């Protein structure tokens, strides 16, 4: 029996597809109240006064809290979970992020009051009647503008809006010298625009203070319940951790935006003790647009230098990273340790320096969004590679192959040590590109492209060969880099007397299919049917402290913790089996759910051993009863998936309309447990990455309003915008975790975006341009063609 490697149908899908998923907003508690936030309509405004007198008296209103109340309660706000220091060693600027602002609103959507009523409609009606007097200030949304002297100051004590600056790699002078003396230098200035996460389930939180037990419960749409509990208890409300339970029930997508600890979570928890009734808050979609942490938002200048043969000599990159108005939970890590560290890519570049300015603006906070830093790094490198190839008259595929790091398996050959603080685990980069070229029919494409000349169509091909750091992360390493948390994972394997198994994982599934792929691993390793395994996650009262799901870590870290516990179960099980079989443990083999005395037909099944563990009448002396083990797994290193994405576009010259004709993705995510789930992750990731290239992007006006804050104007990629993806894999196992897996959640998003833009640039190579700003709309392409 082997579940591992087979496309088992997702067990969770039955409840999702039949509408039986149980999300936070589905939960109704006795006496529950509903909260509606009063939010600033201005991007930057002093709050002169807040008048709740009329609203307070309205039908059904239970209580209205303003910033004065949270200030009076001494609540400082939500913290940042990652510290990055300035180049000069000073600590980053970390202005408070209050639950309710009382002095100044710093972005559209900043919460000013929480109105609580018996029904949501009543809360909403009353919220409309809270009168806030503002003194509107000039706003700044663009990080370049924000850095200039005289720009609006988002926080009074953060000069020039600089949260921190940071650099990594070889000394800049050395890198600059290499660039200055190089045969060819490719320079690009570009924007990696802000995108909005748009999880299909809006954020939702219920705070419940139970007076009988003196205990709080927070139900919240989150990717990591324990982390929320830790931040909530230790940093925001000062609550004893054992008196707080955090539950992340079914979660309808996160893409990073539900990693972070949000103000509303703390507000409903705190408020529920003030009013002694549960409080539910669920974001309206318009609120999601302006309060969910967004992604990307980099402005970059990058240079790549080559010798006359096309070997890369050096890379420099200067990026302005927009942090938004406050530092969200992991925001400082994204442009730095998740971005700068990836600038080696797949190449042997001997000299690299990256410099980051992290900037406050009057916008919603920016934090990790599917890929988090790594898509930005890939975009930077891969746009440079295709542009360099074009400028030097080289083939973009050949230029890459020539500069690839040689294969290494991480066992016989050492992991590759980069110029930017990482050691890759294992890699073999040529085959993904070669397979991609084979699938696309590269020579035929170039012939077709030539043949299209003179017609009304332009054809283009774009490449992207990427690497990502996943399986986040070795705790000691990230601790040294500023993380204020560990990044291990927990797992408990609880065997019941009947031989059925409950597995408690600190990972959290919000679409990834853990209930299936984890169960496949457990069933295979234990030799029992999948139906006998249940995966439980998301409840801090049930599951040991875990770190949740992001950074493609669940299987690599959470799965490894499960394997560790299984090993413990089987080790103890063998002792019981040996006793029952009157044999020595060393003489037993375990396969297909039973222990057999080697060379005989004497065996005992897993079920009998389980029963014996709990009914220990005939039992090994000195052995504890029970069959139930917990483990914590802290990975030895990140994992490093990689791959090659190739995009073919067709541009209609008359209209500028770009069509993605084909998209080829060859990804190496290490070993694969469930190919269908991995394919699904790749497909979804590709749609998001291609979506950034063509459709998505926050647009702000002068006053700091989000112009496209509804689905009438914010363009999400749809199925009919996309071709049928052509995907394949190579398999280079991860050498340092027991499953050999590397993680597949982000690969699609990380690799795809530059492939699309490169394809557009290839199609437009006759028009003498260096860049086209994302999203690549038909208007922009038409401007280039007819400009």
């Amino acid at each position, binding site marked *: 029996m082997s579940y591992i490697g087979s496309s088992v149908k997702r067990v969770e899908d039955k409840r999702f597809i039949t509408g039986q998923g149980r999300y936070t907003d589905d939960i109704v508690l006795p006496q529950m109240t509903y909260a509606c936030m009063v939010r600033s309509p201005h991007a930057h405004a002093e709050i002169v006064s807040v008048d709740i007198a009329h609203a307070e008296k309205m039908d059904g209103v239970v209580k209205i809290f303003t910033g004065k109340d949270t200030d009076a309660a001494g609540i400082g706000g939500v913290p940042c979970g990652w510290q990055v220091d300035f180049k000069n060693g000073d600590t980053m600027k970390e202005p408070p992020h209050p639950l309710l602002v009382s002095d100044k609103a710093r972005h559209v959507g900043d919460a000013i009051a929480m109105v609580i009523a018996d029904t*949501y*409609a009543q809360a*909403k*009606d009353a919220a*409309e009647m809270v009168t806030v007097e503002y003194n509107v200030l000039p706003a700044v949304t663009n990080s370049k503008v924000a850095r200039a002297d005289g720009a609006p100051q988002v926080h009074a004590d953060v000069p020039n809006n600089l949260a921190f600056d940071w650099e990594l790699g070889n000394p800049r002078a050395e890198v600059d010298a290499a660039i200055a003396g190089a045969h060819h230098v490719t320079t690009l200035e570009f924007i990696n625009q802000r995108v909005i996460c748009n999880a299909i389930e809006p954020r939702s939180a219920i705070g419940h203070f139970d007076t009988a037990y003196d205990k709080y419960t927070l139900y919240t749409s989150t990717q990591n319940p324990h982390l929320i509990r830790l931040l909530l208890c230790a940093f925001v409300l000062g609550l004893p951790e054992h008196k707080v339970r955090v539950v992340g029930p079914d979660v309808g997508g996160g893409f990073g935006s539900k990693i972070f600890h949000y103000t509303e979570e703390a507000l409903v928890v705190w408020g529920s003790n003030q009013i002694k009734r549960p409080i539910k808050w669920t974001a*309206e*979609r*318009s609120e999601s647009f302006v309060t969910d942490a967004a992604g990307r938002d980099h402005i970059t200048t990058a240079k790549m230098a080559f010798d006359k043969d096309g070997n890369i000599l050096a890379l420099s990159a200067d990026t302005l990273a927009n942090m938004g108005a406050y530092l969200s939970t992991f925001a400082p890590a994204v442009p730095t340790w998740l971005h700068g560290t990836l600038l080696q890519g797949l190449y042997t570049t001997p000299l690299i320096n990256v410099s980051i300015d992290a900037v406050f603006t009057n916008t919603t906070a920016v934090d990790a969004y599917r890929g988090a830093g790594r898509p930005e790094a890939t975009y930077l490198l891969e746009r440079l590679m295709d542009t360099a190839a074009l400028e030097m008259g080289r083939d973009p595929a050949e230029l890459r192959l020539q500069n690839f790091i040689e294969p290494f398996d991480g066992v016989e050959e050492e992991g590759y040590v980069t110029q930017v603080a990482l050691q890759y685990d294992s890699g073999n980069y040529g085959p993904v590109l070669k397979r991609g070229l084979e699938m696309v029919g590269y020579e035929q494409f170039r012939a077709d492209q030539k043949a299209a000349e003179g017609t009304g169509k332009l054809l283009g091909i774009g490449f992207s060969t990427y690497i990502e750091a996943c399986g986040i992360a070795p705790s000691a390493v990230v601790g040294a880099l500023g993380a204020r948390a560990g990044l291990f994972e927990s797992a408990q394997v609880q065997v019941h007397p009947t031989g059925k198994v409950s597995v408690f994982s600190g990972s959290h599934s919000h679409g990834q299919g853990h209930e299936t792929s984890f169960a496949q691993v457990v069933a295979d390793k234990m030799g029992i049917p999948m139906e006998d395994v249940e995966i439980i996650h998301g409840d801090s009262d049930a599951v040991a402290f875990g770190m949740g799901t992001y950074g493609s870590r669940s299987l690599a870290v959470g799965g490894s913790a499960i394997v560790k516990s299984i090993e413990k179960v089987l080790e103890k099980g063998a002792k019981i089996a040996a006793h029952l079989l009157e044999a020595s443990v060393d003489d037993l083999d375990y396969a297909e759910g039973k222990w057999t005395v080697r060379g005989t037909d004497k065996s005992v099944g897993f079920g009998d051993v389980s029963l014996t563990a709990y009914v220990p009448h005939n039992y090994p002396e000195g052995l504890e009863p029970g069959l139930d083990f917990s483990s914590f797994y802290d990975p030895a290193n990140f994992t490093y998936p990689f791959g090659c994405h190739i995009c073919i576009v067709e541009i209609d010259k*008359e*209209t*500028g309309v770009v069509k993605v004709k084909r998209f080829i993705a060859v990804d190496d995510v290490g070993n694969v447990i469930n190919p269908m789930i991995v394919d699904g992750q790749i497909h979804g990731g590709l749609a998001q990455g291609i979506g950034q290239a063509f*459709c998505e992007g926050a*647009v702000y006006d002068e006053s700091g309003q989000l*112009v*496209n804050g509804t*689905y*009438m*104007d*914010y*363009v*999400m990629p749809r199925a009919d*915008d996309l071709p049928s993806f052509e995907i394949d894999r190579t398999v280079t196992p991860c050498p340092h975790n027991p499953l050999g897996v590397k993680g597949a959640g982000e690969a699609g998003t990380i690799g795809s975006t530059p492939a699309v833009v490169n394809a557009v640039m290839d199609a437009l190579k006759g028009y003498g341009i260096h860049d086209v700003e994302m999203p690549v*709309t*038909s*208007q922009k392409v*038409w*401007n280039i063609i*007819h400009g």
Partner: protein
Amino acid sequence: MVPSKFAYHKPTTLKEAIDLLSTHGDDSKILSGGHSLVPVLKLRLNDPEHIIDVSGVASMGGIKDNEKSITIGANSTHAEIANNAALKEHAPMIAIAASMIGDIQVRNFGTIGGSIAHADPAADWPAVLLAADANVVISGANGNRTVDIDQFFKGLFMTAVGEEEIITAISIPKSAFNKNSTYVKFAQPASRFALVGCAVAVANADGYVTEARVAFNGVSATPFRDGNVEKSLKGSVLNGDAIATATASVADGVSIMSDHFAAENYRKHMAGVYARKALSALA
């Protein structure tokens, strides 16, 4: 997303509906398919105290195939229109436009009456109704009146319908030009409303154009017919050259909308492209 509180009325006759409108006047809103009004209510851009749901008024429904015209009840859904055999035969652009609106759910709920009453400049109905030379039947306390479609659209979200009036039907003449007609749209990528929608209806006799009607929505705040294009086509043989000449400067003198999807120059250009596309389909 919840609207403000309102009282809900569901009349079953036109008279009842008009009476309710007269009683509640300013404080009321008609509800048909709800696919424009409900979002407006939920976003709290409007908070009427009374909602008068006309979807149960039987006389406002159904599509009638008359001798000289086809009468489309205001409550007809986009889906009913898209699938109507008489319209497909006598005015194909009407069925085509209907089939391009939104998605299946929108087409199953949204109505033609609600759409033209709403008068979103980017909606699909205005261009085809202008090209079709439609008449809009409007009822009020003083009975019915018929408004020529050329007089119907008054600007951004503004029409000839009075405060206390209800659109009851749209009538489409059975004419040579309607029989030979089509609609094309360049969709806004998020909403899929029209950045440019162009409806063309062309009557020919002996190989020459006797009447051409060319109308646009999405381009300007008020949907419009382009008289220059129509004049240029009249009397010509509808071929590539004639189309190219006629569409060389589409939407001249019209004030053109601009947004981050399509600036003025691009929209104007695309209006020409889509006029050519539509006319070529009839050539």
